[in-house]
């Protein structure tokens, strides 16, 4: 189900003294099955952009096509779009409300109109995949730790099995192990089901090692849209807009400048390791 953004502009608080253009003239095509990373400085419009993809914000100008249909058409079924494009918000733990963890995760599948058996099955699967132990399932979501709440909230969206999964900084505030676990889980779901994943992140390392394509936002505009390798080649320009390349890219560049026969366009640690071993063997 490809998503096409056609010259999308969005302004907050239109018609008031606080009008603010958060997106200006964004054109993007999101084909099926890609793992996309969105990076950008604070306030560059990342959250605003992703909230358009499931119709939570309506573009001030321009339109969005989902599967060839204009989502702002009167006849378009918005509820259907929202069940197919799942979204994990920045700090999703603030949306928990049910009496038990299990009930909370069931909320999404229930709204999809699935029979009770399927709802339970999905909730159970989602909870175990995010690593929530079974004995926690019947406790109140408000008694959990911050990281556990985050996992439950993510499970709540995973249980809906969306064709397009959007995650707005899902790992902010988690410890390194928890972060890797969640990202690995997302990657595995992506590999297994072939869904589209859009990951908004501040961490260049995360983005470089998981995604196939990076969209760089700056001041509400798309600045770069390419593979991680190509995007991080322009690390100088990235630094100008408050971003950076992954640490290993800098390391490899310095090694190269010191005369080592290595490629400098490396973006992940494992690639760097291979390059260095190769260079040592020469």
């Amino acid at each position, binding site marked *: 189900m490809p998503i096409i953004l056609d010259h999308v502009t969005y302004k907050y608080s239109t018609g008031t003294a606080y009008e603010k253009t958060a997106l200006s003239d964004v054109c993007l095509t999101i084909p099926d099955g890609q793992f996309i990373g969105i990076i950008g400085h604070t306030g560059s419009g990342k959250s605003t952009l992703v909230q358009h993809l499931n119709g*939570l914000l309506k573009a001030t100008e321009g339109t969005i096509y989902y599967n060839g249909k204009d989502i702002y058409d009167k006849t378009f079924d918005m509820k259907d779009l*929202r069940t197919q494009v799942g979204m994990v918000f920045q700090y999703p733990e*603030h*949306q*928990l*409300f049910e009496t038990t963890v299990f009930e909370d995760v069931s*909320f999404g599948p229930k*709204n999809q109109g699935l029979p009770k058996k399927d709802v339970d099955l999905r909730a159970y699967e989602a909870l175990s995949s995010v690593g929530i132990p079974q004995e926690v399932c019947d406790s109140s979501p408000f008694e959990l730790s911050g990281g556990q709440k985050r996992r439950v909230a993510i499970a709540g969206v995973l249980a809906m099995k969306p064709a397009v999964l959007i995650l707005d900084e899902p790992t902010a505030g988690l410890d390194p192990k928890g972060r890797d676990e969640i990202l690995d889980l997302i990657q595995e779901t992506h590999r297994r089901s072939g869904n589209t994943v859009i990951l908004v992140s501040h961490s260049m390392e995360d983005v470089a090692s998981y995604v196939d394509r990076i969209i760089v936002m700056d001041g509400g505009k798309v600045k770069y849209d390419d593979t991680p390798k190509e995007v991080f080649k322009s690390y100088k320009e990235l630094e100008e807009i408050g971003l950076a390349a992954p640490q290993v890219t800098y390391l490899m560049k310095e090694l190269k400048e010191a005369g080592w026969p290595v490629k400098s366009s490396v973006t992940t640690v494992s690639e760097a390791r291979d390059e260095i071993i190769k260079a040592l063997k020469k």
Partner: protein
Amino acid sequence: MLRDITIGQYYPADSKIHSLDPRVKLLATLVYIISLFMVDDVFSLLFISVALAAVIVTSKVPFTYIMRGLHSIIILLIFAAAFNIFLTPGIPIFTIWKLNVTKEGIKSAAVMMIRMIYLIAGTSLMTLTTTPNALTDGLEKSLSPLNKINVPVHEIAMMMSIALRFIPILIEETDKIMKAQMARGADFESGSIIKKAKNMVPLLVPLFVSAFRRANDLAMAMEARCYHGGEGRTKMKPLKYQKGDAVAYVLLAAYLAGVIIIKIVTNSIL
């Protein structure tokens, strides 16, 4: 949708009215409201209209902003006007289906409408040109004599400014939670009243939880920074009268005198 709420909304602009001391604006609003209820003849209302228009123009706040507050009371206005027109006893002008429309009725409806509209316009103008903080500062200072009879003026002012400060935060939070639940397929718009009320649970529970969490956090943060109530507390920006405030007081006195004189003159003529 939620952003249409205008209570305590401030319109930033650089005008003579904005830079007035909040105490002046509070007193002026009070005098203005009293004057509105003192008068009911054409000349006085004309005088008040001119004064109000002059202040609106000086404030540089767009007219549509000031009138936005009227949306919420328009139905109330229509009802009140209808009751006034049909139910005021007096000389009937014509009759619609057993209901007498009287001259007095039309007059009192018109006066009432004008009063209400002017009341909203005047008070909105005050909140639009004064930040909530300045407003509570002004109130605290104006009411400080009440301290002598053991009214906790500082605490009341502090609660008020926190409450005002939290309105936009809670609106934003509601917006956020609503979006998050809509993304999970929640439906806040359709269905019967009972269904709608039930559908509000996923919105209200997280909202209350977060409001309590915020209140708790704020109390802790204030204590951690040694807040201990109003006693011996000084201000970073104490209120000080400027030249413009003196001018404003003079104009206010002139306004009050004008209203009273017009009232006396018209009373003696009629």
